[in-house]
């Protein structure tokens, strides 16, 4: 894919704070128009990656291109940020201003034409559901409302790329649903969304592609279909001794949940063989449930592998 079609590209992007490695050699490409999920547990390096992409922190090594502009060319990167919206994980805005004034401020900072400010602000307030409270001081807002305002700020100026760092951390279920709808709306108009999150269902519902990071490293990257391609089957079996269970490991990755045995990575045509093996080992099969792996399963198994 040509450079022009990539919203973000990183090459061995790394960040160290003294002896602590926050991000170790991140290499990835995000095509323009994608909704990309950046998943990882707390402390995995997700926020560090976002800060590096925005020029808020400097990489120890490596390079990244954001809407075509390399981090190393500060001027080009600064100009490119005109087309980037950002909702920080730590969303704080001037509490002595109203939401409308905060949005005005950001219209000015982006460098939007004054003639479009009112329309942009009205649109952003409407999308994030703050139109009724637009003239109230931000200091009087709940955390959820402040996060909605931050989302509105990130949407100003119809950016080509929006980086959302844990965008629903302070939102109730209705707010989370609204954010998913906003992300779908962004995708519909061709905006690239970089969604930093540890909420797997959120990512699963809106993202085209996902990178799973842990300890500053990308453990796996790909489309959701690619990531979740490994089929799994759940078998409720009794009377199976440990030796028998060991034999089942030849079919795939094994996880025991009481009487249930979960076998990951087994091909569908091998399920009858699995059942036969269980019976041959003295087990009694009560139920067989084919299961499509969830992102949560995949996420946990990848992290477990990484820690093993």
């Amino acid at each position, binding site marked *: 894919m040509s450079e022009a079609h990539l919203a973000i590209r990183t090459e061995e992007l790394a960040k160290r704070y003294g002896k602590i490695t926050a991000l170790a050699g991140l290499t990835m490409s995000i095509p323009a128009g994608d909704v990309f999920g950046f998943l990882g547990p707390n402390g995995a390096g997700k926020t560090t990656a976002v*800060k590096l992409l*925005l*020029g*808020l*922190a*400097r990489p120890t090594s490596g390079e990244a291109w954001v809407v075509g502009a390399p981090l190393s060319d*500060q001027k080009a990167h*600064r*100009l*490119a*940020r*005109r087309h*980037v919206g*950002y909702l*920080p994980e*730590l*969303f*704080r*805005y*001037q509490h*002595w*201003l109203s939401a409308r004034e905060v949005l005005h*401020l*950001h219209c*000015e*900072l*982006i*460098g939007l034409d004054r003639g479009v400010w009112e329309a942009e602000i009205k649109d952003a307030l409407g999308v994030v559901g703050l139109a009724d409270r637009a003239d109230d001081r931000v200091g009087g807002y709940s955390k959820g409302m402040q996060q909605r305002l*931050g989302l509105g*700020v990130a949407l100003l100026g119809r950016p080509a790329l929006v980086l959302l760092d844990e965008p629903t951390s302070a939102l109730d279920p209705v707010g989370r649903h609204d954010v998913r709808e906003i992300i779908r709306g962004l995708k519909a108009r061709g905006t690239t969304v970089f969604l930093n999150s540890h909420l797997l269902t959120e990512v699963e519902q809106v993202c085209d592609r996902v990178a799973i990071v842990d300890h500053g490293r990308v453990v796996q990257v790909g489309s959701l279909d690619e990531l979740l391609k490994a089929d799994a089957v759940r078998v409720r079996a009794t009377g199976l001794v440990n030796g028998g269970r060991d034999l089942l490991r030849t079919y795939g990755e094994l996880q025991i949940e009481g009487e249930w045995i979960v076998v990951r990575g087994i091909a569908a045509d091998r399920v009858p063989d699995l059942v036969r093996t269980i019976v041959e080992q003295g087990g009694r099969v009560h139920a067989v449930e084919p299961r499509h792996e969830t992102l949560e399963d995949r996420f946990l198994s990848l992290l477990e592998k990484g820690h093993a």
Partner: protein
Amino acid sequence: MRALVIARLVIREAGRRRLLLALLILTLIVVALTGWGFSRIPTITQRGVPLPDLQVKIVASQFLIVTMFMFSFVLAMAAVFVASPQISGEVESGTALAILSRPMGRSQYVAGKWIGLAALVAVYAGGAGAIELGVVNAVVGYIPPEPVAFIGFVIVEGLTIMTLALLLSTRLSGMVGGVIALVLFGIAWIGGIVGGIGTAFDNAAITHVGTVTKLLLPTDGLWRGAVYALEPQSFIAAGSQAGPAAAANPFFAATPAPLSFELYVVGWVILVLGLTVYSFHAREP
């Protein structure tokens, strides 16, 4: 220009958070109290006889110097309190994240902060200084020899300490930076007195301590320039008769601030502002 957006934000914040209102009310109270004090000077009698007009003006000039010293000190403290959390506060709270991710360089952000603070210092020092001098003129008919130069020196003194506080704000929390800036301001003042003592006793080493202090933080040198602008010629002549010993008096200046010092101060502010930009470039919010 995005720096001006940030500058306007600084001024707006001062207005919204009622800093300007508080300063206005306090200044009016101080002006009213000192105005009443000045109005009592003509009522002073010596052996039952009111002071002659010349003596009233000399007493007024001395009282004005002491009043204005307090004013310059309050200005310095206010400048430090407002400037020291300007950058660190926004970095610590996270407010800086959304702003710095915009198409704006760190230097524009720092420049905007400085311009906004400088405007606040200049308007407050200029306004309050002019009101005080106007009230003194109204109640005792005394105008210092160079009122505009005086206000100029006080404004630059405020800008100097504000610039230092802004530099510290790039690395230290508001509380720590503020305390350090105020302590340095105090050291500079004491350094000026120490240098004066060195001059009085013709001790080169002690004189150099004063000179070095004045160069590291030129606030005391600027204060001496402000004092000179307030002194009537007769008072300068009388003070100069005391010889080099007068140099140790922090409320007296026998000579005006040399042009070389004034240029040095301009260079100092530019240098410290450059250091502020450099320091903030390396800061990761």
